[in-house]
């Protein structure tokens, strides 16, 4: 009976919510945030973070015209995997998400404009979701474009052999996986950094600690490795990188998780952290002088 009551209450609550207003508010928030964060000169360094590997690959294609031997494809596939896993996941997407998502609220405090968002008839949860979606759109758009460009530059130089690898071989599947993993990385890191910006006045220090954790988790036991975003991203990547160097002797190879668990786990992480952010936003007061 009580379960029925709870369900009835939830249904009643759902019916009472102005969902149409929420969705129009979210679309306005997303539009404003995307304009504010994407089309601005101050964000040039984020473009650089996203497109540095593209520029390097472009230069490589222009100046190294001899290395187009089809036998090199496997080698270049490993290079691409290294770019995505070692550069994008650990540095590029990490720092760009740190900049984009922490700035969504903290930036407005620094610019003393957050009160405008708090003086409109918008629920704070809607504000969090709207800003998060804007950050996700910006970061996904930038890094998917960058990964797509890297993929194109990696295989286009091989001509027909490259086309065959992409369209008749595993190439297209790998591209799909990279795009999926890139989007998940943006969403996962984004949710975490958004929450950190609401939890700490200076989210850089906890952000640096998170980066350290993500870097050293491979030497921890398997259960601890599961507490990092990189763990799930790595297992979704289509190409595994060989473990080399001095750290290899400390590295513990954890049992891989299924694709479903990895995707579902990362999305759940993002949702849980987003719900936490919805609670944290209610703690924020407009006292700019104290910041």
């Amino acid at each position: 009976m009580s379960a029925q009551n709870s369900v009835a209450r939830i249904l009643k609550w759902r019916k009472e919510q102005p969902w149409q207003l929420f969705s129009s508010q979210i679309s306005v928030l997303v539009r404003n945030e995307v304009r504010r964060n994407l089309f601005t000169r101050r964000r040039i360094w984020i473009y650089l973070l996203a497109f540095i590997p593209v520029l390097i690959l472009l230069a490589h294609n222009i100046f190294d015209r001899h290395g187009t031997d089809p036998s090199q494809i496997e080698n270049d596939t490993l290079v691409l995997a290294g770019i995505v896993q070692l550069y994008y996941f650990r540095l590029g997407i990490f720092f760009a998400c740190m900049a984009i998502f922490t700035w969504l609220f903290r930036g407005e405090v620094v610019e003393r404009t957050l009160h405008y968002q708090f003086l409109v008839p918008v629920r704070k949860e809607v504000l969090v979701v709207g800003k998060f979606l804007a950050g996700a759109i910006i970061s996904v758009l930038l890094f998917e474009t960058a990964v797509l460009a890297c993929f194109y530059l990696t295989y286009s130089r091989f001509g027909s052999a490259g086309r065959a690898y992409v369209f008749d071989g595993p190439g297209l599947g790998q591209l799909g996986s990279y795009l999926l993993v890139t989007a998940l990385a943006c969403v996962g890191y984004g949710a975490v950094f958004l929450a950190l910006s609401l939890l700490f006045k200076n989210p850089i220090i906890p952000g640096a600690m998170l980066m350290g954790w993500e870097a050293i988790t491979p030497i921890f036991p398997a259960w601890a490795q599961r507490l990092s975003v990189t763990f799930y991203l790595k297992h979704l990547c289509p190409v595994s990188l060989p473990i080399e160097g001095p750290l290899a002797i400390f590295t513990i190879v954890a049992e891989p998780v299924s694709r479903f668990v990895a995707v579902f786990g990362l999305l759940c992480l993002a949702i849980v952290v987003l719900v936490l952010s919805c609670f944290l936003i209610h703690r924020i007061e407009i006292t700019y002088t104290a910041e």
Partner: protein
Amino acid sequence: MTPDPRQIVFDNVSKFYGEVLGVNRVSFSLEPGITSLVGPNGSGKTTLMNLLTGLIRPSQGAIYVLGLTPHQPIEFFRQVGYCTQFDSFPPGVNGYDFIYWPLRLHGFGRDQAAKLTNEALERSGMAQVARRKVAGYSKGMRQRVRLAQAIAHHPSVLVLDEPLNGLDPMARAESIALFETIAKQGMHVIISSHILEEVDRISDRVVLMSSGYVVAEGQIREVRREVRDHPMQILVRCSNAARLAAAAFELDHVVEAKILNDGHGVLVRTRDAEQFYLLLNKIVSGGLVEVDAVAPADDDVNSIYQYLIGSDGAPT
């Protein structure tokens, strides 16, 4: 308590920033009309306004605005407009967009939001420069565009933190006329200022603040009555000033009767103005003195403020 849907109610509200006092044990309720919060810088005016609009939370107590609280943002902010003192704007925004996009967040459609934006810009005298970037505006223009944003959605409660700062005399007069028009429509207008003469002219009531405490509140004359123990000054323009001064001195409650330099009047300081007016009537009816004019000389907020807190309310 059941909040009154017509009033703004502060119920034993305190706000502390760590160990620093913002406001302490504030309780009052406001009817529609123009209410001025008056006090020197740091007296707690902005804290009170930020509490009222939910930008900060009270450490204790409760605030109701027309029966609503900021925890119901959709209903609350449709009723409330707040022009803050923060002179900052979203980067790159122009005057029109600054008003238009918040209206879209209110849920207005494109056409309605555009209509309300243009109307607010007209009312605040900013229509001509609306497409210019706010970063290029003068201080007065920035003040006016913030005011335009606060009134654009036709709120029932308009909260204005030092709204006349930075305005030239013409813009001041226009803004004051706008506040009076809004108040006549039955809305609440709450203004903070340390320019006492301005709020004295336009206010229906005042809330006098000092060091986080409300030291007096009510209609200016009511507040004056609250400080009955302090002598009130009454200026009488008359013939035979010496006779009037002598008669006034015979009354216990008159503490001073000073003949004006030109000899055509007396400045009386009395603890009981009603009794003095009775005496004046007697003298006039006896034909001893011809009175040209009688007026309270200190029945304005500035004088009251000096009595109450020993300060002229000038910014510190």
